């Protein structure tokens, strides 16, 4: 049962999104109006524990994170595929269970391969 079944979920979701955006906007506006403003060259520098920053900060970063992001993509898509099955699991019964077992077996094989190849090792 919805709080207001007269309004669709879509409209309510948009209301929630607008509320979030409005909250940030309004709070920023109030802060801009009442907060002090001053500028100095030193203050505008990035804070890296007081030592002057060296080199570029927006750089290409460690590839280790990238490997985990690819693995995440695989397994998150798997989770997305499994959710519809989980919902109708009871009506599919044992046959559906066997079918999904094959699907999962292939995925676990993939995880085992990644593990064996050392993709899960952080170095």
């Amino acid at each position: 049962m919805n709080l207001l079944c007269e309004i669709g979920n879509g409209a309510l979701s948009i209301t929630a999104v607008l509320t979030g955006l409005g909250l940030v906007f309004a709070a920023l506006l109030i802060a801009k109006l009442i907060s002090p403003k001053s500028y100095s060259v030193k203050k505008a520098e990035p804070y890296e524990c007081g030592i002057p920053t060296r080199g570029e900060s927006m750089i290409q970063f460690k590839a280790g994170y990238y490997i985990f992001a690819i693995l995440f993509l695989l397994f998150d898509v798997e989770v997305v595929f499994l959710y519809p099955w989980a919902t109708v699991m009871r009506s599919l019964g044992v046959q559906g269970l066997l079918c999904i077992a094959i699907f999962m077996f292939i995925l676990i094989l993939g995880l085992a391969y990644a593990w064996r190849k050392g993709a899960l090792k952080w170095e």
Partner: protein
Amino acid sequence: MFNFGQWTTAFNNWLLGIGVADWLTVLIECVLIAVAILGVYTVLALFYILYERKLCAWFQCRLGPMRVGKWGLLQVFADMFKILIKELISLKGTDRFLFKLAPYIIITSSVVMLACLPWGNGLQIIDWNIGIFFILAVSSVGVLGILLAGWSSNNKYTLIGAMRSGAQMISYEISLGLALMTIVVLAGTMDISTLVAEQENAWFIFSGHIPALIAFIIYVIAATAETNRGPFDLPEAEHELVAGYHTEYSGIHFGFFYLAEYLNLFIVSGIASLMFLGGWMPLHVPGWDGFNMVMNWIPGPVWFLGKAFFISFIIIWFKWTFPRVRIDQMLAFEWKYLMPFSLANMILMAVCVALGWHF
């Protein structure tokens, strides 16, 4: 069970009855909903800040904030106003647009998740029939905000913090999804209000045998990592990275990250309360009729909030008990132990349900 929906239906009928046009009714109701969300969001955030400060003080045998108001109850209001009047420092070399976009994304994703949680029978704003799936989807948008904040700040600490946070949140999201899927397998629906309604006689943590219990434990661990807390707080490890991805944010900009962090703590606890501990359903023991009747007198929202605060208490407790893990330990723990384990647990639950071994 009392249905809060009848109040809103009555209000809607009254608005239409006094001759307000259809579109205006919808508009008025949407505005009221927005005000309600804002109120709940702020009150919860304030409550949680005080809750955590007091709890962590008690864990360390301190008193916590005591000066402002009785037992320091007004401390959070003082903090909020202080943070509002602080200067918004504009920095050199930041990516201005992304820097300002990040708080919008983080706050909006937590507001939408908050609107999805039912507090009582009919006391829910967004009620998709894919409810829990929608929440998972929205929660992954929050990661974007953190990555943007870290990247656009032009600071090496924020970059490392954001990368760690991204790796951690996307990794533990899989376990989180699989643990919740265990309950979806048991219940056969993704609609949160139906899920809770099915727990009238026995909460899923009891009716789901051992798989549900394991799923609950996995969920609490993964949720701790998802909210960047406890032993998994290495994205903002203050001894290494100053403050992690929000180092360069000042004033209310920082306040947004702070708010969203506490709201996310409430949201993950709320989901645990709804999916495993029966949400607004009272505790029933079969056969104890007198006890069940007394329990029925306690209103639903009190049950929901009580359970959510209890889970939050456990998550806050983690932080003061376990030392922080290293990043390799954190990733190895997820990918080598937690994820295969939660997958196996989900299959176990599917077998249990297919063979009819559940209550």
